[in-house]
């Protein structure tokens, strides 16, 4: 597959995964191997640095890029504090900004996210903001220094697919940095659809973590992402309203002068 560049780093995988909701931490390395992902996000509030057995970081293979997220942050200030803490704890300088002050639908606060993006990008973080797909907000995040934008396909954990398709399509057309569809992808075909649309990558957690066989599901998502990307690169045929006969009815008109 063609490589993906985020913030100057080249990646061979276009599937990012999350580490929440799994039946055990022990399964996480198997999932990562099965889907060959290179970027793994985890909630810093779940990281227990002092504990060997319970520390999620112990289960993420070396070589993966850690993408700590700011889950739990209710405003930009809290997101910034979490990001700084993550870096101080040795989790690197990538961060997924999540600013959520709605515990019911877990919808992101774009305005606070822009503020946090600006502060953290200036501090040298590679900032990937989770956002509601809004063109102007995405543009402001890019201006603020976002290395990619992560619009939601549907609310977190809903497995509903890409319900925000028309808005995401606009971001894909207009935004210069990679557009990574995050949240809502419930099945491999949703991931394939995202990639066929021209998304740069997808992030999946619930659909893999809560399936009956997370390892197999991770592999399925990986294949779907590759298939979708190949389809996009191969430039799919245009959709038309009418059938196009392989032997056109007016073909005789162009068969040369008779």
């Amino acid at each position: 597959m063609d490589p993906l560049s985020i913030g100057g780093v080249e990646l061979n995988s276009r599937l990012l995964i999350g580490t929440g909701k799994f039946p055990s931490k022990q399964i996480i390395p198997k999932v990562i191997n099965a889907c060959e992902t290179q970027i793994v996000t985890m909630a810093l509030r779940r990281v227990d640095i002092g504990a060997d057995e319970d520390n999620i970081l112990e289960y993420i293979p070396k070589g993966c890029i850690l993408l700590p997220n700011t889950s739990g942050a209710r405003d930009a200030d809290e997101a910034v504090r979490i990001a700084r803490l993550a870096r101080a704890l040795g989790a690197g300088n990538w961060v997924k900004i999540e600013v959520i002050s709605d515990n019911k639908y877990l919808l992101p606060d774009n305005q606070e996210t822009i503020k946090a993006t600006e502060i953290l990008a200036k501090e040298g973080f590679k900032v990937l903001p989770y956002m509601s797909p809004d063109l102007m907000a995405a543009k402001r995040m890019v201006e603020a220094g976002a290395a990619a934008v992560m619009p939601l396909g549907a609310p977190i954990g809903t497995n509903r697919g890409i319900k925000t398709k028309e808005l995401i399509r606009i971001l894909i057309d207009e935004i210069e940095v990679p557009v990574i569809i995050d949240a809502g992808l419930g099945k491999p075909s949703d991931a394939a659809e995202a990639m066929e649309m021209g998304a740069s990558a997808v992030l999946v957690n619930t659909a893999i973590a809560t399936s009956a066989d997370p390892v197999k599901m991770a592999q399925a998502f990986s294949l779907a992402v590759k298939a979708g990307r190949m389809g996009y690169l191969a430039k799919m045929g245009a959709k038309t309203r009418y059938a196009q006969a392989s032997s056109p009815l007016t073909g005789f008109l162009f068969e040369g002068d008779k």
Partner: protein
Amino acid sequence: MSFYQYYLAHKDFDFNSFFSSITTTDIERILAKDKINAYDFLSLLSPQAEKHLESMAEKAQKLSLQHFGKAILLFTPMYIANHCINKCAYCGFNVGNRIKRKKLTAEEIEQEAKAIAATGLRHILFLTGESPAQSPVSYIAKAAGILKKHFHSVGIEIYPLTEQEYSQVIDAGVDSLTVYQEVYDEGIYDKVHLAGPKRNYSFRLDAPERACRAKIRSVNIGALLGLNEWCKEAFFTGLHADYLQNKYPDVAVSVSLPRIRPHAGTFQDIFPVNDKSLVQIMLALRIFLPYTGITISTRERQEYRDHLIPLGVTKMSAGVSTEVGGHSSEDKGEGQFEIADNRNVAKMKQAILAKGYQPVSKDWMSF
């Protein structure tokens, strides 16, 4: 407007007529909905719905997986004082009960905290009886400060405070509040709270909201099941959680379903809540409030707790002692009630893993 107005609006609701009108078709229609309203929720608490427990369980399990995944947060309660000036007919700490009273010193709190933290738990809930003289807000704030050094999340289950007092303990490191209304029925509330400041029904009812206004991160509410007909108490618990979540969307709301347990004292006027009814409450709550946490304590026996894991539980206590200083001291104060699941943290983790779920010791941090 506080939740009391919502309570009043339903106080004289004719539950029996409502329940007698519910049909199997109603339950099937409700279970087919994406989002249910308060009366749908009440329908799921009806005798008619009891015949649909399996369908309710399937839906509740699906919603729980979607919102919380296969993860169960572990915590333990830590009793730091059992002095109390209330006369609650159902509670072992009742001022009239001749039990051994104790209040931990700062050193003893630290020692108890170290003993609990050594088990791997990172969430603590500390409790006191209601005695502003023995356990003033300054004592609670000091305890929070000590516990903050050993735990990432510090919760309190104490007497109701004013908004300003909640701000004070939040500044000291408290991030979650548990406060049970005990019984939403105002008449029964008056009967079982014989003396003491706890007799003030509305001050207790509005405590979670005052904490929300003071910017607490999470609140946990509930009724002590057994003091009234369970379907009514479960209904008001659900309405209260829904009210708080809608009004304070940035606060994580959860509910507990404690059943009354044997304790020091003689209160016998109990409305029985059997295992099946407790499951029905839990499933109905999960379907009504898919994003709300549900806590099951060690009041329930171990086999039963294990069976509840896939049905919607998000938080469980482990390694519990209800005695003051019960984790580290030889000289303990007497407990609040008898627990039914004595498993330590390691055994509880194994049980959760055996059910195909992940035990989570840490799910929070201060920012």
